[in-house]
């Protein structure tokens, strides 16, 4: 859920913008470097942004019977890594503010902080941690997406509680209020998003093994050319697993660019 336009007082809106700025600048520098080195990456990064935008527009059935939209930050972070996801998430949030009236421009900093920074980084950290302990890929994907979704809403609750402390119990009381409202809807939604992400990833492993290998989500099978489809893959380890040098953002995306 996005914080709507004008919902935060000016000081809070500015503060969250300042807090988000270093992460966005870091992401922009990564993206700029990548595009300068490999101009063809522009199209793939644009495609990734469009995928993120469309993913966030899907309606997922909630356990409570209602429908809502996935944040898409977990899947995006696993596929494209958090720094790039920060930039793509910022672009997506800008489009949502201007094309769908979801979120806002004065609250862009706060929404970027929760959805394009904390969500992707938290989800990716859990995903990587589980992969480090050799947990099956789909379990890691589920918990990555679950945590990315839930952490996004936890941060949103904190942002709202800081802006509107309870008259009697202050920040903690307000956190209980906002967190309580979100918990009723968002825990089932986080489970739903985790399940959806697993289902999407399962289909991607079957249909787009080449792309996932190039993005570093899957390891390349021995004796298999990138892009070729295989029935079974032993390549379900993350490219950045311990003992193996993690590829840079640039090289991951450039491989994708060079091969499509």
């Amino acid at each position, binding site marked *: 859920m996005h914080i709507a336009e*004008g*919902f935060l007082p000016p000081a809070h809106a500015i503060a969250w913008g300042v807090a988000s700025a270093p992460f966005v600048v870091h992401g922009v520098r990564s*993206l700029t470097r990548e595009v300068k080195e490999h101009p*063809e990456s522009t199209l*793939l990064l644009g495609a990734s942004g469009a995928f993120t935008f469309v993913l966030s527009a899907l309606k997922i059935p909630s356990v409570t019977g209602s429908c809502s939209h996935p944040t898409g930050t977990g899947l995006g972070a696993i596929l494209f890594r958090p720094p790039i996801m920060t930039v793509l998430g910022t672009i997506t949030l800008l489009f949502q503010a201007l094309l769908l009236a979801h979120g*806002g421009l004065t609250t862009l900093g706060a929404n970027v902080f929760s959805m394009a920074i904390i969500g992707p980084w938290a989800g990716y950290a859990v995903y990587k941690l589980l992969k480090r302990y050799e947990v099956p890929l789909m379990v890691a994907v589920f918990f990555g997406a679950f945590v990315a979704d839930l952490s996004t809403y936890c941060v949103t609750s904190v942002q709202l509680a800081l802006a509107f402390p309870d008259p009697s119990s202050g920040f903690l009381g307000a956190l209980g209020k906002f967190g309580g409202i979100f918990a009723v809807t968002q825990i089932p939604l986080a489970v739903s998003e985790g399940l959806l992400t697993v*289902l999407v990833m399962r289909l991607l492993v079957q*249909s787009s093994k080449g792309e996932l290998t190039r993005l570093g989500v899957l390891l390349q099978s021995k004796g298999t050319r990138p892009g070729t489809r295989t029935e079974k893959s032993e390549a379900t380890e993350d490219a950045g697993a311990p003992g193996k040098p993690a590829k840079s953002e640039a090289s991951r995306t450039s491989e994708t660019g060079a091969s499509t």
Partner: protein
Amino acid sequence: MLPIDAAAHSSRWRRRHPVDKAVLGLGLTVLAISLPPWPGAALVLVAALVLLLGPAGVGARQLWRAYRVPLGFCVTGALTLLVQIGGPDGFVTLADGGPARAGGLLLRTSAASLGVLLLAFTTPMSDLLPRLVKAGVPAPVVDVALVTYRMSFLLLDSMSRIRQAQAARLGHTTRAAAWRSLAGLGATAFVRAFDRAGRLQAGLAGRGYDGTLRVLVPDVRVSRGFVAASATLLTGLVALTLVLERFLP
């Protein structure tokens, strides 16, 4: 195409420079969150509404469809201000001054949302994005945003057609089928996005693509008159707020 962007392309102010509309729309938004909700945000709300439905020529139905989205969030958020947790009278009780705070918040968010909608309903993204380079946004980021923008519509269109096909094959009849269909939709979006990017890249490479996406931007100038009128309106709203604050409760 999404409804707001479609309306922006056929807007009366389509040929105005985005800076003209940004000064007015974003100026109203800044005033909405900076001035006291009563009467400041209320005045901004009225001014934005008059501008949207009057000179900008936005349809009332179109505006309501876009406006009800942020309004739903605002109402939900404002409801929490009506109660307080803890205190001598019980665990959850009505907050002192809660209705006033909730009302003020509703006024502020409503007015601020209308300010941004004024910009969104009159300025297509394709006019706005290329000009962000002049505002200091790195060109590669703008290029990525442009590709994202153009590809989003194609993907949304594909998703819509796939959803129809899934429904025609009874793909939404049971909960399990709905989940399968949804997962298929998400995966297809990924495959199509990357496939399209690959084909775009091949096509552009054949045309001597050097990494720069050149797009035609309508040659319009910033209107000093429009900007001055906007500044006058914004200043007038501030002055009126300060005057009314003394007389209104």
